[in-house]
């Protein structure tokens, strides 16, 4: 077996939002950096780079992961989805529209990662309970304290929001 030198680029091939991408990348480059700097998809954000904040969340073969803690080379052959895969023909997805409608976006930094966690949540629980929503997004920090609005947007998306503002009184 030929031994690669440390840092020597490796060719990887993966699908990003359905499109096939082939690229050479050094092994120490994270999936996060790869998406932003090699592919030019800067929707995915770098927050803490230590798995705490969730700003870098993407879907890896359908499951939400912190892309700061995945190497790009590990994604060889994988199916990746990022926030850029949300809009179609330059129109926001319904989930994005509802986040907007409920003022669930203030600074917007957590939103791309939040959306990917919500996608993972909804794939597991099409009609999530409040507790399931809270657990589903617990790895995504919003520091503008917009959780109530985010949860309302999710509940409207799944047709479960009865009255706007009702969540303000709930402590789950």
């Amino acid at each position, binding site marked *: 077996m030929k031994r*690669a030198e*440390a840092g020597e680029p490796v060719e990887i091939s993966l699908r990003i939002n359905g499109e096939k991408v082939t690229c050479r990348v050094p*092994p120490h480059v994270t999936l996060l950096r790869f998406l932003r700097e090699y592919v030019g998809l800067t929707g995915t954000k770098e927050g803490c780079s230590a798995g705490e904040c969730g700003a870098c969340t993407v879907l890896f073969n359908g499951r939400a992961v912190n892309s*700061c803690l*995945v190497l790009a080379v590990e994604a060889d052959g994988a199916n990746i989805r990022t926030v850029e895969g949300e809009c179609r023909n330059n129109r926001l997805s319904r989930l994005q529209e509802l986040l907007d409608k409920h003022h669930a976006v203030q600074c917007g930094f957590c939103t791309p990662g939040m959306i990917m966690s919500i996608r993972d949540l909804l794939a597991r629980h099409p009609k999530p309970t409040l507790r399931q929503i809270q657990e589903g997004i617990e790895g995504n920090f919003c520091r503008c304290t917009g959780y109530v609005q985010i949860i309302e947007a999710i509940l409207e998306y799944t047709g479960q929001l009865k009255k706007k503002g009702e969540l303000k009184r709930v402590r789950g």
Partner: protein
Amino acid sequence: MIREFSYQAPRKQKELLDILASERENARVLAGGTDLLVNIRLGLQHPRIVVDIKKIREHTAIRFDEKEGLSIGAAVTINEVMENRDVQKHFPALVEAAKVLASHQLRNRATVIGNLCNASPCADMAPPLLCLDARVEIVSDSGRRNLPLEAFFAGVKKTRLTPGEYVERIVVPPRWADAGGGFRKMKRVRGHDIGVLSVCLTKKGPLRRVAVGSAAPTPVLVGEFRGRVSTEEVIRKAMRRINPIDDVRGSAEFRRFLTRRYVAELMKEVR
């Protein structure tokens, strides 16, 4: 910036063992990477070669049968354990601990065996697996051996693995299947957080086992108790076995308090 290294993802165990045998200390096994990549980034570890074990098919297996018990391969994630029907049916303590380990997206990557090999005193999978008497199956190019989990931990972030070895899987014996079980973990926040202290208790027939996390250099098995035993007796033994410290997450006194409290709660709750 992460330091440079080379990367290999063998598809056969033989290849993996060859790499580990020739690279020794220069190689680091990569499972979910949720500890390793953080450590490399912080400069705490600097492997020359990172060996991804997830492409070896056998490592992804999780299975239960009444003869062997529960076998969890090296690439099985925390969420895969939690979602597994057999685990839900036969090993409730494992599910409870898995549920509160890190966040959902970390659990999608983090492996059970990575959690044990990282050997942090606060590893959440350790107390339930100590209670369930798990065995660790270790392989190298010169053969295999296995250790009870209790003997696998050697100190803070230290295991009994030697260069060239890795953990292929862990096995929970069938005698602990269908044990009642409970897990308590104190966190500083309601969201995801490393534990301040945790206690696990399992009970099957006349046998009870109790383990404590974040209260000593390694996760601690307090012991096995048979028949009628008072809560005070279990607490007394736990107090003798733990050796907590003051740190950023809590004081030693708080940890002793939580140990007493959680043992008492679980003695009542787990039947």
